[in-house]
């Protein structure tokens, strides 16, 4: 077994186990931490796939932004009583069946699909190539994504703003809000 295989299987193991923990952990905070681990594993896979730029971006954006936002939200919304509650709904058996069925379907399809593998030397790992593509072939999607990000930024502000158009119960309940937040935002016992 060569090093690449070793690394791959290690990363695959890390990713899969973390993913399983994400979906099965009773503690939502643990889920978030395992999500970070899974994302980190994926970033490692990217490195293995000779896409270091993407790996860095994965860590920077997923771990540095999305995961932190999620943890942030978890901290804002989790409550003491939560961990004692059922963390899954009644779809567990069926969902499990469907997921496994889907997995079988996909693996079966994968098994039966010949993929034309090219032997050319990979390029574009360091970002030069990607930058060129972003600003030439994919300039339109690039611009659209930037607009999308701006829109997301603004909409998130508008949605979550407490006294905004969609805001919850007005500024009058701030003390109440704070108290509840501080009480409720404890991890489970």
């Amino acid at each position, binding site marked *: 077994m060569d090093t690449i295989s070793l690394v791959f299987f290690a990363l695959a193991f890390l990713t899969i186990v973390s993913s399983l923990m994400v979906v099965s952990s009773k503690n939502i905070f643990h889920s978030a931490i395992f999500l970070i681990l899974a994302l980190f594993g994926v970033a490692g896979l990217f490195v293995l796939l000779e896409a270091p730029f993407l790996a860095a971006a994965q860590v920077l954006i997923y771990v540095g932004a999305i995961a932190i936002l999620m943890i942030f939200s978890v901290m804002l919304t989790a409550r003491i009583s939560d961990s004692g509650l059922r963390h899954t709904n009644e*779809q567990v058996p*069926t969902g499990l069946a*469907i997921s496994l069925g889907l997995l079988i*379907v996909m693996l079966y*399809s994968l098994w039966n699909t010949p993929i034309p593998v090219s032997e050319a030397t990979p390029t574009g790992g360091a970002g030069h190539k990607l930058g060129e593509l972003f600003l030439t072939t994919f300039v339109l999607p690039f611009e659209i994504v930037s607009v999308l990000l701006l829109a997301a930024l603004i909409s998130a502000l508008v949605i979550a703003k407490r006294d905004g158009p969609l805001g919850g119960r007005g500024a009058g309940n701030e003390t109440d809000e704070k108290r509840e937040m501080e009480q409720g935002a404890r991890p489970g016992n």
Partner: protein
Amino acid sequence: MLENAWLIPVFPLIAMVAIMLVTHRNRMLSAGLSIAAMSIAFIWSWAIALTVWNNPEAQRFSFEWLDLGPSMHIPLGIQIDGLTAMMLIVVSTVALMVNIYSVGYMHDDPLFSRYFAYLSLFGMAMLTLVLADNYFLMFVSWELVGLASYLLIGFWFEKQSASDAGKKAFITTRLGDLGFLIGLLMLYAAVGSLAFKDVNGAVQNGTLTGGYLTVAALCLFAGAVGKSAQVPLHVWLPDAMEGPTPVSALIHAATMVVAGVYLVARSLILFGVAQDASMVVAWIGIITSLMAATIGLVQNDIKRVLAYSTVSQLGYMIMALGLGGFTASMFHLMTHAFFKALLFLGAGSVIHAVHTNDIREMGGLHSKMKITSWTFLIAALAIAGVPPLSGFWSKDEIVAASAGHPVFMALTLLVAFMTAFYMFRLYFLTFTGTPRDHHRSDHAHESPLTMTGPLMFLAFLSIVSGFVGMPWLHHGFSSVVYIGEPHHAEFHLSTAIIATSVGLSGIALAYLMYYKRAIDPEKIAASVKGIYTTLYNKYYFDEAYDVLFIRPYYVVCDAWFWFDKTIVDGMVNGAGDLGMFWSRVNAWFDETFVDGAVNGVGIVTRAFGLTVRHLQTGRVQNYAFVVFATMVIIWLLQ
């Protein structure tokens, strides 16, 4: 000016609409509007007449009105020639005079404004009629004047007789109009156009000829018979005297009733080719003339005398046309319009003073109503054909036109004699002698200036209007109003003397009987009692119609009524009862089965919905589950 002549009828139209919609609350403003509109028409008409006087060539201005494809298009337009110019003058002048006169005559009427609206409507229609360059527009306005006539005859609709008279006039003339319409359709079918120019051209170049032309011409003449009150459709005109007197003067003496004459005159080229039709026209004319004159001898209602006089004179004109005397007829039409309008307005003035129509209750009014009396006398002299008044010149030409036919000439002279007699009978009974009803006479007084003014103006016209047709004028009436070539009538001294003497003798007889009382009319009446009664009852025309048409009609109506009541109603009611029974059955069926089914559908649907709605849980995860499950299932099904 000529090409814009179509604006002439527009002014009265505007006046009518304005009065009806806006100013009807203000009496004087309404009257002023009507008079102003008619004044414009009056001035314009005279201006046109002066132009045409110098250049009698016909001018036409038309535009496309209906374009229904290559084979069917109807242009509307106006035609201005001598005849039109003359008619314009007649119509606008008399209409203006009557408008002014009506201000005084209708002064106390509660529907004063509406009256002037109707007058304006009539003015619009009549002016359009004479301006039209085709039969189609003429027919439209022909019907419009009929409508105005109906409205004005029945103006005092609260009076049963007036209301009936209006209906009678309308229905009677409708009979003639039907013929007119058929004639139009025949002409259109044959010529493909209704323009006078095209129809006349078709007649002249021979495409329209023979029996077809004769029938078409007679159909057109049927319209004229109705409108111009010729035998046998004359019965409506005397009854039309139920309308206000100025209306009688305008519509039923001077203008509308001559529309029939005008129609025949316009179509005279047709009649010139269709000689058989011409003879029918001539005979109808002289019979009408004679019959109306004889009836006029014995009538006691001042307006009815004048009405029969009108019918008689219209018969004159028709006869002249039938004999080809176009210029003579038209000349007489013009002069007659003036003096007959004057007579009617004078009669109106009298009626206004004494509040009765019966000449037996009048008498001795000369001293009380000098202007009315004098102007009435002038008109009477004019109609009697006394030189040099206008009637003399025109009647002279009619006599000259009938000179070629001894029978017609004799009858013409006889009618002339009777005309002179009954006019002066009327005059003497009304204005001279002693008042027979002192109560009425004492309150009599001269009419206001708005009424006497038109009288005097028309009297002036009655005197001078004949001069334009004096035979020795180089450029006179006949140089302007003619068909084909200008026809200058020679002055026949003998004819003139005969006609004048006939007229004078009629006057003399009336003088003896009703002024000097040298001959007692009662005795004469008694000696020829049968004839007198017949004449007094107007040859029993109305009664004959009653027996011949109306009663059988009623009988048939009763029969049909019985049939309707018994059979049809029975069937209908039976069907109704059956329907109700069937409806009840249906209702029961509906309520039980259909409603049950409908409600059942609703209940089932609701139950289904209540069951199925659980599928829509509002939970995204369930939906996502379905999505992924479907993916797997689809793959498995492959």
